[in-house]
């Protein structure tokens, strides 16, 4: 089962410029939560604060409190440990170019020293199955490199790779923005299924997508969380004027 996420008074910086201002949000376990907002408003920055990816950028810094379940993210846990519980899928599919499909999926386990061949086989099978890629790749798991797949397949491979480590939370930063409508449909379907098992936070540029996959939606503007509510409410009856302007297309 997934776990909930609580964020309190989160501020994030790139050097001297502040990118996020006092974010507060509670993400419910085993639901999909969408983050929308015009580009440059801090959605990626926010989602990267949840698994401490933000701090891999030189000079970047965070303060505030983030809880994944009952695990305090910025307090005593190592980032590596945390990221095993919080998987991430990026905007642009980024399979490891030198590895086969199998090795891509097994990478998270293998690179962390897990060697049991039989269990690896099982996990790879299950992860590829869960990311709806198994049937398409099962005949050349070892022969083809991850980079040889199509864009949509690569993105599902990246999802499988994240699932193989068995995280409780899955963060997705615009996972469909580089994909064609058919691939996008497949991934949305997948998200719909995955949230029975995982807590999903998905950044999206596309409001229809948010409406299709997420029960909750947060609206970001200029580094601030303007409104956070049930998706239906955000799109039909937002309480903030700026949200309304954005979702009705009168904005930016």
């Amino acid at each position, binding site marked *: *089962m997934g776990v909930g996420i609580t*964020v309190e008074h989160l501020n994030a910086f790139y050097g001297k410029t502040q990118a996020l201002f*006092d974010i*507060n*949000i*509670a993400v*419910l376990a085993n*639901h999909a939560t969408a983050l929308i907002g015009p580009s440059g408003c801090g959605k990626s920055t926010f989602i990267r604060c949840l698994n401490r990816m933000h701090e891999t950028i030189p000079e970047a810094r965070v303060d505030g409190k983030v809880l994944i379940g009952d695990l305090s993210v910025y307090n005593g846990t*190592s980032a*590596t*440990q945390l990221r*095993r*519980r919080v998987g991430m899928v990026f905007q642009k599919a980024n399979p490891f170019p030198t590895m086969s499909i199998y090795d891509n999926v097994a990478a*998270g*386990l293998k690179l*962390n020293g*897990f060697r049991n061949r039989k*269990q690896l086989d099982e*996990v790879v099978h*299950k992860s590829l*199955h*869960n990311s*709806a890629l198994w049937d398409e790749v099962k005949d050349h798991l070892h022969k083809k490199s991850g980079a040889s797949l199509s864009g949509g397949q690569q993105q599902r491979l990246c999802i499988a790779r994240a699932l193989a*480590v*068995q*995280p*409780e939370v899955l963060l997705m930063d615009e996972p469909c923005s580089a994909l064609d409508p058919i691939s996008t449909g497949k991934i949305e*379907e*997948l998200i*719909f*299924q*995955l*949230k*029975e*098992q*995982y807590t999903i936070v998905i950044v999206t540029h596309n409001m229809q997508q948010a409406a299709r996959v997420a*029960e*909750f939606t947060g609206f970001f503007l200029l580094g*601030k*969380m*303007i*409104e*956070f*509510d*049930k*998706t239906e409410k955000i799109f039909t009856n937002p*309480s*903030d*004027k*700026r949200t309304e302007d954005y979702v009705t297309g009168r904005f930016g």
Partner: protein
Amino acid sequence: MSNQALPRPRFNAPNPEPGSKAALKVEARTTPLLQGKVSEVPDVAFGWAMRLCGLAVVALLGLIVYQLVVGSALSWHAFGWKFFGQSDWNPVSDQYGALPFMYGTIVSSLLALVIAVPLSLGVAVFITEMCPVSLRGILSFTTELLAAIPSVVYGLWAIFVLVPILREYVQPFLASTLGWTGLFSGPPYGIGMLAAGVILAIMIIPIISSITREVLTVVPQHQREAVLALGATRWEMIRMGVLRNARAGIVGAIILGLGRALGETMAVTMVIGNRPEIAKSLFAPGYTMASVLANEFTEATGDLYLSALIEIGLALFFVTIVVNALARLMVWSVTRGQPARSIA
């Protein structure tokens, strides 16, 4: 713009209705296979190990300076600055002056530049501006092949091919036409300053021409077009639109070639004649700082002798560093800030 307070997060949003039926059935999660705490120690240790490698590079330079300075202390105390002004080199009477070697190094290197610069520029201009695209790759590859030949092989070739040619044909010709300058007089041995300059030139052409090419290719296209639009011929376009804009970088390339020539050892040692004399004629034998190290270092029996040789090494080190730093700065002044092109 309404300026209301940020909405508080909602902790108990009502559960939404379950999703539609799906073809795919996601299998249940099991306990994660990766258990146990992750230690930060290997990460920290690895980080410091890599920093240590970086530090080692700096330490290497420090070590070089230290070895040279300590090794040359004896000679420095004995002769001071006079070391670089004296032309006496006599291990028997323990008198050492570096002047003939400095002279030989400078003259042979300058001679190499005089020969190599026009040729390298011609090649670079031809490859970047004139040559058909199909020839471009193979030509640059071939010129760079010159750089892959070991110095000692150049020397070998120079002894058995270049020197006889110089002796039989080039030197008599130069003596009869330009003998009056005094630069080309005396018996044509073949071996001597001229041979050293020629072989050095052949060795530095790849460097100068490849860096010049690098520099020429970053001259913006609009500079060329601006000149062409004025009705210039291709040569005028190259001269005004390309060469003029790349001046600093070309000078840098030439100085890099000079740096290489100053420190080049084997090929020069094999053909320069190895006599510590200062002669006006380029036909006469000479000696360079690098060659005297190559020839005499293992034979240096006295402490002062060895120290004097190390001081020559220190001077050579110092000069090449200054020359190289200068060249790098000049090349950077042209290529930096240009669209991604790596400078090797």
